[in-house]
């Protein structure tokens, strides 16, 4: 499975994402500068975390108009896999690939800590290696992660089973205390109706190796590895 990691001016988790997909998961991977006008041969696009365009105007608002984003949108509409992490989630919402928006954290503070997430969908390419309801431990680091959508949209997301990750306590209860940013209904990650575009505020790429204090993030990448293997997409990058 060929992976493309989009790089905007101000992206700062692009190397982390690249490192995990290439050196830990073993996928062929490359960076794609935001001014490029073609994605090339990719099966998965990662829109990484960071502060694209300094978060000016709104997080993700300017990046969403980068030349590469029209290609990412076409790729997604065509069924291609897209994973937006943190700022990447904000960009996908601004681009209209996912509903809702990420507001300033309710307590106005930048939050940087470990959280627990409950996996509510395990039949997606991003979560197939998880058990239904599994609680995973993943870090967050953001100032605008307060997921907001109209009540009608939230109801629809829940009814359609599109709330893939919810902030919860260690036991899996989505309590107010476990919610790091005020997100509506403790939502930490959502998927589009077709099931190929996932956006999440927490950082799975920051906890995919034990040296980093946790490996639960690897479940996302292991899910993608299994998904790719089932489709006979090359799992290993060519030996140098």
């Amino acid at each position: 499975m060929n992976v493309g990691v989009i790089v905007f001016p101000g992206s700062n988790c692009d190397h982390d994402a690249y490192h995990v997909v290439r050196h830990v998961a073993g996928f062929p991977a490359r960076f794609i500068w935001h001014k490029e006008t073609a994605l090339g041969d990719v099966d998965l696009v990662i829109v990484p975390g960071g502060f694209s365009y300094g978060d000016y105007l709104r997080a993700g608002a300017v990046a969403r108009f980068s030349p590469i984003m029209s290609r990412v949108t076409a790729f997604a509409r065509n069924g291609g896999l897209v994973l937006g992490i943190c700022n990447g989630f904000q960009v996908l919402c601004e681009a209209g690939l996912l509903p809702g928006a990420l507001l300033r954290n309710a307590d106005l503070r930048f939050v940087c800590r470990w959280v627990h997430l409950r996996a509510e969908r395990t039949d997606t390419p991003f979560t197939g290696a998880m058990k239904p309801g599994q609680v995973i431990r993943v870090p967050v680091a953001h100032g605008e992660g307060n997921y907001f959508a109209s009540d009608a949209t939230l109801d629809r997301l829940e009814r359609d089973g599109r709330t893939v990750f919810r902030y919860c306590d260690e036991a899996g209860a989505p309590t107010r205390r476990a919610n790091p940013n005020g997100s509506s209904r403790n939502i930490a990650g959502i998927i589009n109706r077709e099931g190929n575009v996932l956006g999440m505020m927490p950082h799975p790429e920051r906890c995919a190796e034990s040296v980093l204090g946790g490996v639960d993030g690897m479940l996302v990448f292991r899910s993608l590895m299994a998904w790719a293997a089932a489709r006979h997409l090359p799992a290993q990058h060519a030996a140098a």
Partner: protein
Amino acid sequence: MHSYKARITVTLRPSILDPQGKAAHRALTNLGFSTVQEVRVGKVVEMVLHEPSLEAARAAAEAACQKLLANPVMEDYAVTVRRVPEIAAAS
């Protein structure tokens, strides 16, 4: 062509909690501004446009809001446009 200045205010929609406004309100109350009932914090964007008419300038500013400057999921915007002394177009 004439020069117009558009002043755009972008605020969180009324249904959305504005923690910045709340914090400012609390601070004002602590400072003795006891009559303040509510505070909402937003942002202001000023643009100078070269357009043939006030209507065209207003339409351009509205389009800019809808496309980029405001996110209708969470924000409302208001536009005022006025004619200003000619400002040379950027070459």
